């Protein structure tokens, strides 16, 4: 397959920008292994969806690869121990997130033995993957805690199951890695192309795609060659095509890459699956290879450590949960030069709130810049309506319009301009001559919209509950009133019945006429009489004294005599 033939069937995507790649800083060295840290801090939420449920307790001994938390709910992923040791705490700790908030983490004090738990591979490299069922592979992927490692962090097994059910004819593998500085996918393809290709074949088998297109930017010739050589070892039945795409940011955006490779556009607010395409990242493919061929869950990832303030920029295989400080020290951080510490790339990354946060499944790059290396935008100037932002937008949006509405917090209008199609690539902010932080406005507007939605849902629930309560109280009140009415009615009936008895009538009328003491005395007398009558009646009811034999009668008489005597004795004694 010649280069020209592949280039001939490429399509452009709108907008985009040319950036200095700065990739050679870190893509020439082989992958180094990170030193084992004394303490691993493993967040239970390293993916989109519900956090995992912790299954270990403080004091438990865990082995490498042992499960720490099970997936909670349909969209979730388990997390595993990335080193053997003792669980010392399960508590909140700072996580790498722009908010600087904490989240629940499992702390492991490593013992240094790196003892693995039982790994049960599904298959060996000698066997054919057609021996496996899709469900088997999917379950293995789900249990390994694999999520979209290109940055989406969506549980891979969930995505694959959905794609399996839908009609998916093309698998796109994202190997573009378009952001400057980041080279973790690049070195993975250079050094471990076999893993990538085998992982891709597994994905292809599950989704049942007819063809597979690997899109790689043309600034990674070594990785391209490595993949080509690996693929040539397999027969042409694999239908895997490796295509070099022009280096233009953000060609590695899922929707942009699909557009470049297939010419198809993902519909607004839709998914690639809607047009029969599924997209996975190369690192995810390699993780799937590890899960299926070695039985290893996702416990480490390759992280690019680069930037002007790093003495030895490199790619490191880092156990998840390793404090970022440790890997920065290993790579040699020149503390006097540091200006910014960014997780991710310079375009879409964010400044880390602290370097004592752990490496997670999302950590692809730690960029430590020296002064003057990255542009610090000067204060924003007013928008001059030059429309460079809309020219550069790869999603063909109108950033200047969205900016006005986001600034005015007109959340409805900003949605009319399809803010949710914004991929936050940062092209608009980059080209803005007034240095307006456009992406920040869009992020702000998006989270405001989500928050509004949450609030609305909450108030709807509150309204329903309040109305239900009102209804219930109303019902209770009505029931009470009804019960009172019935009671009154009964009383009235009783009274009416009593009124019919002439004697009673006379007496009650009597009572009404002179409600004095004699009357109440009368009543007392009456009550006493009634009580006496009742007692007499009860006494007459003693049935066990009837029909006694002579002997029995004699015995009773004896007892009665004894009782009488005793009581007399007592009386005399007192």
């Amino acid at each position: 397959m010649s280069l020209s033939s592949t280039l001939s069937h490429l399509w452009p995507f709108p907008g985009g920008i040319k950036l200095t790649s700065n990739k050679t800083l870190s893509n020439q060295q082989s992958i180094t292994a990170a030193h084992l840290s004394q303490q691993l801090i493993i967040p239970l939420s390293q993916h989109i969806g519900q956090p995992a449920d912790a299954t270990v307790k403080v004091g438990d001994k865990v082995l490498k690869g042992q499960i720490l938390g099970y997936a909670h709910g349909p969209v979730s992923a388990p997390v595993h121990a990335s080193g053997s040791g003792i669980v010392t705490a399960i508590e909140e700790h700072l996580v790498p997130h722009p908010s600087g908030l904490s989240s629940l983490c499992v702390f492991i004090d490593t013992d240094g033995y790196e003892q693995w738990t039982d790994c049960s591979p599904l298959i060996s490299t000698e066997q054919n993957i057609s021996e496996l069922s899709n469900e088997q592979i999917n379950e293995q992927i789900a249990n390994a805690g694999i999520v979209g490692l290109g940055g989406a962090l969506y549980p891979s097994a969930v995505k694959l199951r959905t794609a399996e059910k839908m009609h998916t004819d093309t698998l796109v593998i994202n190997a573009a890695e378009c952001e400057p500085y980041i080279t973790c996918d690049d070195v993975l393809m250079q050094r471990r192309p076999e893993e990538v290709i085998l992982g891709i074949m597994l994905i292809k088998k599950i989704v049942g795609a007819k063809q597979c297109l690997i899109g790689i930017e043309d600034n990674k010739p070594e990785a391209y060659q490595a993949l080509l050589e690996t693929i040539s070892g397999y027969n042409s039945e694999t239908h895997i095509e490796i295509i070099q795409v022009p280096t233009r940011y953000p060609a590695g955006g899922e929707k942009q890459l699909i557009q470049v490779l297939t010419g198809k556009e993902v519909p607004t607010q839709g998914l690639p699956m809607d047009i029969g395409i599924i997209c996975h990242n190369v690192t995810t493919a390699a993780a799937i290879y590890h899960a299926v061929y070695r039985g290893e869950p996702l416990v480490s990832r390759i992280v690019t450590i680069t930037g002007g303030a790093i003495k030895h920029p490199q790619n490191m295989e880092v156990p998840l949960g390793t404090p970022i400080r440790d890997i920065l020290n290993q790579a040699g951080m020149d503390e006097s030069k540091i200006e910014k510490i960014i997780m991710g790339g310079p375009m879409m990354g964010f400044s880390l709130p602290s370097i004592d946060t752990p490496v997670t499944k999302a950590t692809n790059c730690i960029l430590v810049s020296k002064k003057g290396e990255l542009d610090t935008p000067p204060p924003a100037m007013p928008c001059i309506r030059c429309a460079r932002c809309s020219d550069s937008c790869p999603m063909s949006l109108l950033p200047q319009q969205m900016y006005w509405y986001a600034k005015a917090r007109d959340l409805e209008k900003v949605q009319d301009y399809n803010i949710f199609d914004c991929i936050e690539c940062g092209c608009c902010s980059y080209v803005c001559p007034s240095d307006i932080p456009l992406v920040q406005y869009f992020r702000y507007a998006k989270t405001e919209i989500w928050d509004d939605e949450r609030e609305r849902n909450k108030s709807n629930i509150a309204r329903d509950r309040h109305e239900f309560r009102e209804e219930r109280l109303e019902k209770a009140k009505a029931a009470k009133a009804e019960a009172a009415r019935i009671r009154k009615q009964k009383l009235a009936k009783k009274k009416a019945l009593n009124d019919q008895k002439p004697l009673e009538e006379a007496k009650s009328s009597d009572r009404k006429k002179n409600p004095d003491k004699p009357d109440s005395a009368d009543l007392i007398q009456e009550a006493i009489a009634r009580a006496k009558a009742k007692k007499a009646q009860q006494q007459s009811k003693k049935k066990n004294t009837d029909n006694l034999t002579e002997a029995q009668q004699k015995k009773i008489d004896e007892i009665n005599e004894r009782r009488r005597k005793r009581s007399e004795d007592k009386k005399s004694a007192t």
Partner: protein
Amino acid sequence: MLSGILAFIALASFFGLALGLAAVVFKVESSPVIDQIDALLPQTQCGQCSFAGCRPYAEAIATGDAPINLCPPGGENLIQSLADLLDVEVLPLGEEEDAFQGPIVAVIIEETCIGCTLCIQACPVDAILGAAKQMHTVIESECTGCELCVAPCPVDCIEMIPVKQTLKSWRWPEPLYNANNKEADTIFTTLDQVLAENVRP
């Protein structure tokens, strides 16, 4: 002539019937404006507006008996959206109303609770669980933070605490445009001044 008259009579009676029927079939029970206002209100049912809940306040706004600025939980955003809906002027939040400090929830200090059920009766959204002489607890996800349960408690065991922010509820801050804008304005004025000075001979 006759056919024309007949045609118009036929048309008139048809439309009359259609309209009459529509009035019966599509009869609106309550004023849609009240529903619209009610949909905007935060439904905390806290009564800080001096009405017995959000719906009564919505009704009062609809009839023009109450101004739109009596709802502290709704804050400025609510006033803005009510003003948009009713096409009235935006009013500042009433001065008596304390500024809304962000979402809060009630928490019962369980050691102190005597199980008197008074708070259960006060809760407008049935968010408190418990029975007589049994410890009570607040269902946090359902609590609107109205504080109506605080006053009836005879042992002061209910505390209002701010809702903890999580990674999911976190919002990006608004970019500091205003601060920057001031600077931008000053730069612009100086630029203007510079230009003006250049023009001068």
